[in-house]
């Protein structure tokens, strides 16, 4: 055949190609087989965020986990997976393993994006981790799988008085890391140890923009009306705007709206009797609160037009790049980034109050918890050692050295930060907030899907884009909440 030579050529080449692929595959398989996963954890001084952390930074250490002997291996899932979080986790794990040579921790970093799915899949397959970062999965029944450590915790508290903020204990006591009340919740039990905290009703100010518009520290608004006036002064589109709130994202926009309702003495719901709620914003006050909120964008135009799809991260970046003068509802999570970006122009103050109330401060406390796996149930002593390590002074310093996220739950350590020369002025505001948080924010019934339903975010955006009026927004929301309460048998008649 005339095409004979070509055929042979192609064939040879293709065989060679496939052969090479096969060889590579086999080679890789052999390599993997001969080298079982060696977990090398290098903790370096924080290079991703320039060091303004005042804590003595940990030097580079490497720990190689070797083949198990007669030791206890615990799995630990962490959902905060940024380089700082990972470094912090490794710092804690390394030190803990040094102090407890017969306990080894297998850490898995499960990014928030897949945390929920992964957890549910684990539940279905009965493959829960032994320990887990204890929050953020508000809509998932991890309640049923937690293990109680009451005796251990109470003893620890007796042995370490004044070590942890009182308010944090109270929150954990009520199983309330993010402010939800679950009807069949096990109150007054401890399922884990406090790890870090968050606090969001603060007002962040970019003093540079203030100065450019003839304002100073004395002009930092304390009431909502003042906020509006200051924001108007500080709006110079498209260079910068006076204010931004979170317009997109799951959950976050709704916390901001809640604080707004509280400024007018309302709330999403109010508990009438134990376990029974009524809708508490479908009245004139609620309407005024919502109108004032949306007027910032619709009437006064002091917010950037990108707000409608700016999630928490974009708002944080808008503030960091000096495009927004004031933000609220953003917690301490970006503190060090902002210190680097704005330096001494970064100011913090309590969130402004409204005509009939003020945002009720809420100290979110994230615990580290354990699930009812066989290993945990058989080794509660050792598991508690691991859990409580995070709450000790050393554990706290290690987590925040890298830096891990959040605020310390250790009161003495936090005090030290608040009195530090360099970073004290920001930490002090938080510290004072913690110390003064006497009133517990009223808890919301867990049946509300508002904070976890990506489809409800559309309502806020509909108002911002003019497709829904504020009245309709109020009505739709009220109806949705009432329906959910009724379905769960929690509606007060």
């Amino acid at each position, binding site marked *: 055949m005339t095409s004979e030579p070509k055929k042979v050529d192609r064939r040879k080449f293709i065989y060679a190609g496939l052969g090479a692929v096969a060889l590579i595959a086999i080679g890789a398989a052999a390599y993997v087989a001969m080298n079982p996963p060696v977990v090398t954890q290098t903790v370096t001084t924080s290079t991703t965020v320039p060091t303004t952390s005042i804590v003595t930074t940990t030097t580079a250490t490497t720990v190689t986990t070797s083949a198990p002997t007669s030791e206890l291996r615990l799995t630990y899932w962490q959902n905060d997976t940024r380089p700082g979080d990972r470094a912090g986790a490794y710092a804690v794990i390394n030190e803990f393993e040094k102090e407890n040579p017969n306990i080894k921790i297998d850490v898995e970093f499960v990014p928030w994006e897949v945390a929920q799915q992964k957890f549910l899949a684990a539940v279905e397959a009965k493959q829960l981790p032994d320990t887990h970062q204890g929050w953020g999965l508000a809509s998932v029944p991890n309640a049923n799988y937690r293990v109680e450590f009451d005796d251990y915790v109470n003893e620890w508290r007796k042995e370490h008085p004044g070590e942890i903020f009182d308010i944090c204990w109270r929150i954990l006591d009520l199983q309330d890391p993010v402010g939800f009340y679950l009807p069949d919740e096990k109150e007054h039990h401890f399922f884990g140890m406090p790890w870090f905290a968050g606090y969001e009703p603060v007002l962040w100010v970019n003093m540079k923009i203030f100065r450019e518009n003839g304002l100073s520290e004395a002009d930092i608004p304390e009431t909502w009306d003042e906020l509006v006036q200051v924001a108007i002064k500080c709006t110079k589109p498209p260079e910068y705007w006076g204010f931004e709130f979170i317009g997109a994202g799951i959950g976050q926009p709704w916390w901001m709206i809640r604080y707004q309702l509280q400024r007018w003495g309302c709330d999403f719901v109010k508990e009438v009797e134990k376990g029974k709620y009524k809708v508490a914003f479908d009245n004139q006050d609620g309407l005024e609160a919502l109108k004032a909120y949306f007027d910032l964008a619709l009437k006064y135009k002091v917010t950037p037009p990108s707000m409608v799809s700016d999630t928490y991260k974009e708002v944080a970046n808008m503030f960091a790049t000096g495009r927004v003068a004031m933000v609220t509802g953003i917690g301490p999570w970006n503190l060090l980034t902002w210190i680097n970006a704005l330096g001494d122009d970064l100011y913090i103050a309590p969130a402004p109050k409204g005509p009939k109330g003020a945002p009720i401060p809420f100290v979110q406390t994230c615990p580290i918890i354990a699930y009812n796996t066989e290993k945990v149930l058989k080794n509660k002593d050792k598991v508690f050692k691991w859990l409580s390590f995070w709450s000790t002074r050393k554990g706290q310093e290690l987590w925040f050295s890298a830096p891990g996220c959040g605020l310390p739950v250790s009161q003495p350590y936090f005090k030290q930060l608040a009195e530090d020369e360099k970073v004290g002025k920001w930490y002090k505001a938080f510290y004072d907030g913690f110390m003064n948080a006497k009133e517990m924010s009223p808890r919301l019934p867990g049946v509300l899907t508002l904070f976890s*339903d990506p489809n409800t975010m*559309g309502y806020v955006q509909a108002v911002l884009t003019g497709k829904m009026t504020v009245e309709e927004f109020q009505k739709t929301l009220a109806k949705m909440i009432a329906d959910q309460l009724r379905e769960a048998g929690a509606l007060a008649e």
Partner: protein
Amino acid sequence: MPMMSVANLKKITPYLFLLPTFTVLILVNIYPLIWGFIISLQEYKVTFSGIVVNYIGFNNYLLLLNDNLFIQSLLNTIIYSFTSVALQFLLGLMVALSLNENFRGRTFFRTVILIPWVMPTVAASYLFKWLFHPFLGMINDILYTKLHLTSEPLLWLNVAELAFPTAILVNLWKGFPFYAVMLLASLQSIPESLYEAAKIDGADRFQRFRYITLPSITFISMVLIILGLVWNFNGVTLIYTLTGGGPGYATLISPVYAYNIAFTNLHYGYGSAMGWFIFPFTLTLIFLYTWLMLKKE
């Protein structure tokens, strides 16, 4: 050795060849399929008090028909798929025609157009989200701040009217290389002699294109379009990462809605039903394809 007669062996040979394929497909997919279908008949909700499972028959499907958001998302999906595929195909065709010519630097361009195909969808759409941010992103910085081509910063993904086209644009960037490569191959297989003969007969460029090029790629084009439609009907990642369905519900397409329902609201039953509801749409497209494919023979 074999007990079978030659005739019998001949009869089952075709099926024997298909055996490995079907074995793998069925073994791997059968459990999820059954699980998914049964779930869609249930009200399977993950709540605080545990997993609530109620058998409710086809109620989920009835709920779907009353769900305004779902109907809207379905419309969005249809518009999104058809527009995306049309644009991807056209651009791919133009690129393929260009690359079909012989010129220096062809290899370079051929590699460059592969870049969007090779970039992971997640990374690409997340990056575009940043690039298209009206104030933090590069695109407006160039268009508005530096070149003053627009009178004000465009709100690409922030305004309902612009978000949808922008999403289609990102989809275009990501998807056209596939069409370009496939069409290019098809074009390259057209014998040069046909064009020569046509030139001799006096046909001009457009006539050559219309009577030689176009018919040669008709079949592959139809196939690519159908496949593209199906992929866009089911694809979640791009829209989910780029806009999450927003702003408002402007870019919400059915697969994203189903994903939200199933994995964020944790109503697996409802989400599953949604998936199965969309299925007949893609099914008709597949039947169309096989009918076409086998008609050719």
